[in-house]
């Protein structure tokens, strides 16, 4: 089966599309090919093909329920959690299909971290929130762990705020601090890609701005895929944007391109209508 035969939208893969001038050297970090996803009998996403570029921020936009979050969880195999979820297609990562059974999921998830909508620090101390994943991934040297923890907390700008209470509960932090802690928890494992599912939507405006600034700082060092309903935020942070829409109750990728381009000169009528606020 060829890539294009079964899908109605052109695959947005490297070199095959008009994405405008690249922001950076466009090297595909993930190559999503004809990805479909179903929960039991219900197909939620169909025929999605696109590349995620290394060191760039890719925003997934579109109305609720069109499969953006499902798409995100397929990329680090969190979809495995329920046996009724079926994922088809392929996602190339380092020349390997990360959807294949042969992939070691635990290592994959270390390399592709995920941040959730609601901050979910563990009910442990701040230190142990970062210490536990390190230990579980085989970092046995206590000193090295301490160092990595400090670096991660500095990266997210939390070190100065919590350095004197590392052993108190992470749940006592404010919502914005908790979310930054969760980002630090992902960063401490030195991932290559970060998946973010509306990381700011549960936060107050000020915390949201702090987290957003942090996400922008990650650009260049990490590949970021972010789901957001906040179009202004997508424009501010993202290099690339992918627009998802429901067609006949199934989520589809409608358009993908350089963020600026997609917002200013959308190729598709639906995209234009959505970003101008007349649909969705």
């Amino acid at each position: 089966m060829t890539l294009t035969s079964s899908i109605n939208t052109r695959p947005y893969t490297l070199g095959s599309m008009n994405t405008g001038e690249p922001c950076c050297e466009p090297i595909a970090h993930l190559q999503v090919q004809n990805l479909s996803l179903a929960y039991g009998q219900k197909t939620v996403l169909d025929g999605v093909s696109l590349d995620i570029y290394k060191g760039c921020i890719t925003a997934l936009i579109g109305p609720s329920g069109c499969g953006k979050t499902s798409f995100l969880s397929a990329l680090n195999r969190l979809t495995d959690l329920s046996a009724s979820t079926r994922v088809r297609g392929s996602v190339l990562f380092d020349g390997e299909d990360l959807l294949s059974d042969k992939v070691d999921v635990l290592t994959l998830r270390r390399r592709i971290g995920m941040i959730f909508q609601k901050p979910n620090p563990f009910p442990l101390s701040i230190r142990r929130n970062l210490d536990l994943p390190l230990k579980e991934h085989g970092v046995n040297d206590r000193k090295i762990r301490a160092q990595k923890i400090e670096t991660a907390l500095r990266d997210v700008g939390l070190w100065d705020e919590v350095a004197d209470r590392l052993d108190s509960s992470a749940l006592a932090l404010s919502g914005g601090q908790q979310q930054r802690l969760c980002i630090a928890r992902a960063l401490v494992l030195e991932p290559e890609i970060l998946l973010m599912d509306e990381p700011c939507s549960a936060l107050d405006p000020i915390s949201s701005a702090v987290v957003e600034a942090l996400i922008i700082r990650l650009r260049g060092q990490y590949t970021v895929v972010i789901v957001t309903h906040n179009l202004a935020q997508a424009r501010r942070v993202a290099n690339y944007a992918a627009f998802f829409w429901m067609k006949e109750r199934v989520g589809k990728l409608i358009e993908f391109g350089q963020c600026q381009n997609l917002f200013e000169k959308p190729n598709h009528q639906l995209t234009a209508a959505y970003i101008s606020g007349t649909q969705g």
Partner: protein
Amino acid sequence: MLNKHIDKPVSVLLMSIAVLCGLILLLVLSFLVKEAWPAINDGAWRSFLVDDAWYPLEGLFGISPMILASLAMTVGAILLALPLGVSSAIFLVFYAPAPVGSVYRLMLNLLAGIPSVIYGLWGLTKLVPLIVQWQAPGVSLLAAILVLTLMILPTVALTSAAALTAVPQELIAGAAALGLTRKSQILLVLIPAAKTGIISGVLLAVARALGETMAVLMVAGNVVQNPTSLFAPVRALTANIALEMAYATGTHRAGLFASGLLLTLLVLLLAWLASRLRSQAQRG
């Protein structure tokens, strides 16, 4: 990366333990059947119903008086515990001022936690002498009913209270808006709405009463006879097992296991009914 692939073996280990624990039921049932076999195979089970007395040493295995005694105790206890338990629940949910309510709930929990042998002891030393003043011999169906009532009251009260609390608030508000008095609200709207929950609690209580051994063994008098009077000493099916296991051999022992099997099937049937009702209440 020591524990990278630990999930697979752990999963297999946990599943085997789960299967093992599930097999306990099979093991219990099969050992009951195995031990009871001499008393139930080849139509031998008929003697349980046909024989008119329980003289196991002479080969007479009529257990109907004991089944009747067990049923009489259970029915009597439910008849007392149901109204008392439901009104306690109503008290707890609608009438008790907050601090009284929490003390009352604590008390019911305490009551539920007292070992049955202590109820038996208390019944034998306090209740039975009282009944003797009224009518000898004291150890009787009545004593068993009263002790069982005390034992199942907390179950009935606590499950009914839970069922009443689960009634949707709109229903109560609606009833109040109709201008119903509190009594009518409770009797006409709340109790019917909580009906399935209450009945499922009662079924659990019935199962507990039927399966109870020590308390009834200690106060019922243990004479194998049909329960014809409240003051007559009777022997429950469970008590019979406890009394005779110590010396039973051969078919006698098999007969005791057979009565245990019967008891188990009865109680499982009740538990199944209760769970059907519960899931029905959750859906509707």
